[in-house]
């Protein structure tokens, strides 16, 4: 994306985000949030993170590729296990990166041998 495109994107997302934050304390200060919006908000984060994770791991250039001969899906699996056991964000990121380096190292040994 061009720099102009990026700046425009920032502008749109920035203004939108600010409007959300100002909405109920300024724009609609006398009203309460609709129940359906409340319910919707709860599911946006899990849906977004799941879609992005699945896409980051298994989609390359618009095609679904289960590349289980590369380190990333396996490192992600380690991260899932650590996240599930510890519920600790930093431990999960650290374990995932460590697993990535370990698997890359093992793969290089295999290729060299």
């Amino acid at each position, binding site marked *: 994306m061009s720099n102009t495109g990026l700046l425009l994107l920032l502008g749109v997302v920035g203004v939108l985000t600010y409007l*959300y934050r100002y909405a109920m304390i300024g724009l609609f200060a006398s009203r309460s949030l609709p129940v359906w919006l409340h319910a919707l*908000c709860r599911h946006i984060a899990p849906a977004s993170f799941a879609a992005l994770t*699945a*896409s*980051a791991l*298994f989609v390359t*250039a618009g095609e679904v590729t289960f590349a289980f001969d590369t380190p990333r899906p396996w490192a992600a699996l380690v991260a899932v296990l650590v*996240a599930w056991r510890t519920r600790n*964000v930093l431990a999960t*990121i650290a374990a995932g990166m460590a697993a990535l380096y370990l698997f890359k190292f093992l793969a290089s040994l295999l290729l060299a041998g």
Partner: protein
Amino acid sequence: MRLPSRLGEFLAGCRDESPLLLGVAPFGMIYGIAALAAGVPAWIAQLASAVVFAGAAQLVIVQMLAAGAGFVPIALTSGLLNLRHMLYSASMAEYVRHLPRRWRLLLAYVLTDEAYAVAVLRYQRRDAPPADAPDYRHWYFLGAGFTLWVGWQLSTAVGLVFGATIPPEWELDFAVPLTFIALLTLLLRERAGQAAAVVAGAGALLFAALPYKLGLVAAILLGLVAGAWTVHRLERAR
């Protein structure tokens, strides 16, 4: 007990927000590193931290840029993700409604996840000032938000400096999906959220071929439908 002054409240807000910076700083650094890896110029990445000032959305933006997504899908996805700030806004409304407009305009700018979490606790504490005494708790809110803002800008800058020196072979951009995995695990407490995540994840693969990564938007919307449907079904089963 002496009532806290404006400065006293502001500094208390700064103090109580500080521990949260330990958790926020790594995200800022990961964001900075991933932004450079996605081809975003450093000055635009830093500007984004000031303009958007929302960690999860900024990580989503750079992840989608790296995947070659187009303008509209990125704006839709990050716009949708930030909708939750309306919840914070609604929750804060009763505490800041009486303030002059310029205060509410300012506080809206710092109404992020972490500042909200600290500020709302101050308002819910029992030692509220008596009705006839001046209420300076919005200074506390501002102190918390200001501290988070400074921490976010600095950690972004550190990430940008690091990102410019670390070779791409370190694959630090992989920290972004790892962050999503970690946050996802924390969010999957209830059945409806799990349904939303599973359907959205499957949808991302199903719609992978759609241009400009519009498939991600479709997948997230499908996940929201699945979440809503699960809530509806659970309510009927009760």
